[in-house]
């Protein structure tokens, strides 16, 4: 009888913890369960605070940016007006924002998966490049194949190439304990040089050679692999909806499948995961490969939907911005969507700002950096809040306090 009740309580507790995790707040939730009456209110307040944290970071970054602009004799209101107007104010701006959000969602998903296994994938930039190269080379080699067959295969080739690029640092980390941050940085440089080489030699557009202009770009992809535009004469293509669908798929993968459970378990506590019989090395490698294939797919989709050929600078900073997007989305696949929309908009708006009020687009890169610094710091404040509440919760009952020992105070993906 007694056991029955505790079992039910335990189940309820887990259910709520699960819900809270989806919303990006688990530790404070588990605490609030100790006092059910005030718990709900506290949970929602905590969730609201946590959701606001990244937004607050953006606002603070914009204010700091405004100060810099003032110091340099530029009108910040004019600049930001041009930026937001350019990104969200017009149909053409909005479609461009959605077009930029597409690769950002995909890269953000890849970074999120890897991060859930506590693998920091800095290599998205290189994975995008090889994904684009792989997809282009494949589509050009089999240009006579029918579209219904060639188009999905081309996208898949991009994902495969990116996955291979993620496999190297993945294996190095899992088997030889090589720091993945460093190896992915090197892989980025190698991918960049590989693109330079291919676009100036083997993959250079024959038309460019004939014209003698030698602009480093490949020949145009066969028309049957072009992704249709949603709005004609804009860059907004159907790949965006593929990215949305994949965000939902990744949510299911992470929270409803064994692999996802293993990834999160490894990220949460590798030693415990190993003890529980999870093949940690394989899971780490797999997380890196998945991360790489999402970035590679982003490269392929960018080629098929926007440029229709591979051009120099195809990665366009999406690799690093994808990290910002993933962090801002609270490392949750669904959080990545609004986050990508915002940062895609900032990228479009930055170009607009540079054209109309002559404020360099580099401002946005600097602001993104500030946002990252603030978001990673904000974990500390959430933790402080939890610790405070914990000491409050400890007072009425000692036993609960023992159960809710604080976890390591770092940006640990919540299980």
């Amino acid at each position, binding site marked *: 009888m007694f056991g029955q009740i505790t079992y039910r309580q335990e189940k309820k507790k887990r259910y709520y913890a699960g819900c809270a995790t989806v919303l990006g707040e688990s530790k404070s939730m588990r605490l609030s369960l100790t006092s059910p009456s005030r718990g709900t209110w506290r949970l929602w307040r905590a969730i609201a605070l946590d959701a606001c944290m990244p937004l607050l970071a953006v606002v603070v970054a914009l204010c700091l940016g405004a100060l810099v602009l003032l110091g340099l004799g530029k009108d910040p209101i004019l600049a930001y007006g041009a930026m937001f107007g350019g990104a969200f104010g017009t149909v053409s701006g909005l479609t461009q924002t959605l077009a930029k959000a597409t690769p950002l969602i995909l890269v953000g998903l890849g970074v999120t998966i890897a991060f859930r296994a506590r693998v920091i994938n800095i290599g998205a930039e290189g994975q995008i490049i090889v994904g684009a190269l792989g997809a282009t080379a494949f589509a050009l080699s089999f240009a006579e194949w029918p579209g219904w067959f060639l188009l999905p295969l081309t996208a898949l080739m991009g994902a495969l190439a990116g996955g291979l690029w993620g496999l190297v640092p993945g294996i190095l980390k899992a088997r030889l304990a090589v720091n993945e*941050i460093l190896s992915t940085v090197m892989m980025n*440089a*190698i991918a960049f040089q590989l693109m*330079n080489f291919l676009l100036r030699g083997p993959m250079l557009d024959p038309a460019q050679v004939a014209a003698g202009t030698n602009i480093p770009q490949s020949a145009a992809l066969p028309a049957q692999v072009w992704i249709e535009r949603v709005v004609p004469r804009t860059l907004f293509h159907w790949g965006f909806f593929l990215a949305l669908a994949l965000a939902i798929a990744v949510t299911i993968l992470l929270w409803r499948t064994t692999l996802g459970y293993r990834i999160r378990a490894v990220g949460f506590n590798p030693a415990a995961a190993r003890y529980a019989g999870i093949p940690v090395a394989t899971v780490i490698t797999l997380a890196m490969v998945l991360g790489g294939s999402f970035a590679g797919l982003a490269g392929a989709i960018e080629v098929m939907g926007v440029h229709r050929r591979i051009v120099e600078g195809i990665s366009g900073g999406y690799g690093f911005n994808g990290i910002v997007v993933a962090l801002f989305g609270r490392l949750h696949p669904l959080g990545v969507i609004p986050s990508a929309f915002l940062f895609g908009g900032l990228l479009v708006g930055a170009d607009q700002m540079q054209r109309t009020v002559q404020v360099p687009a580099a401002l946005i890169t600097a602001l993104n950096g500030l946002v990252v610094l603030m978001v990673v710091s904000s974990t*500390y404040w959430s933790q402080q809040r939890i610790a405070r509440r914990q000491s409050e919760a400890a007072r009425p009952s000692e036993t609960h306090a023992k159960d809710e020992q604080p976890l*390591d105070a770092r940006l640990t993906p919540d299980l």
Partner: protein
Amino acid sequence: MEQLFTLTTLTGILHSTIRLATPYLFASLGETISQRSGVLNLGVEGQMLMGAFAAFFVVVTTGSLLGGVVAAIFVGALLGLLMALVSVSFRAEQGISGIGMYLLGLGLSSLLFRLTLGSVQSVRGFAELALPGLSSIPVLGPALFKHSLLVYVAFALVPLVAYLLNRTTWGLNIRAVGDNPQAADTLGVPVIAIRYATVTVGGAMAAMGGASLSISAVNIFQENMTGGIGFIAVALVYFGGWRPVGVMLGILLFSLVSALQIWLQLVGIGIPSDLAVMLPYILTIIALALAPQRTGQPAALTRPFNRGMV
């Protein structure tokens, strides 16, 4: 083939090896100090860019080279402090905070450059300084002893940092904080203060590395002119096993391969230049995989210190 590889080319390759090694030396030695105290500063690239810009800006506007160096050190230390605030006090995930610092430095240096100087121009940087006597040694003399002042400073820092880390109380404290902060804390070593100091010094040295490019090696500033040097500098610290001399040897090997690759391009041997450019990166990956480097790794590297939590 024989006439291609003469003593003059040997001198030339060695000379450019030393020259290429300089920015890496500054950045990697600074990174060595901060990593020995347990903090991974991945924002070196951003700090280098800001240092390069600050030094260049001051030299363009005032003409004072000393002013340029001071400006770089000041800006680098400031960014180091910011990094310490985020990584030490706020206990942020160090791999990510470094990316934030990189983006901040990359964006801010480009923004400031565009809005203040605008176009690419060159400055009169540090002149070549031939050490009397030493530079007249055949082959080696011109290769090793005909460089600008900052090159000598960079190499002089190697024994200096080694001495600091291994032979002084400060160094002992830094290493203690990096290996076992809890124990160091128990013995009264100010863990947080030491980590702040090392990350700040590391930032200043990274900025010097940037300055060694913009006012000594190439004498211009361009957006994103470091092009990944800062990230590689971090990798070379792992490669060098967290010992200043080891780090220097790693840097020299990396620079030698880079110099050889440039020479290969110049003489036009049939390797596509873009493929040859990959060589140093591939080499670094292989070195990271094969080197028995984990033995020297500070035990608490990337672990934030939080008193009361073990």
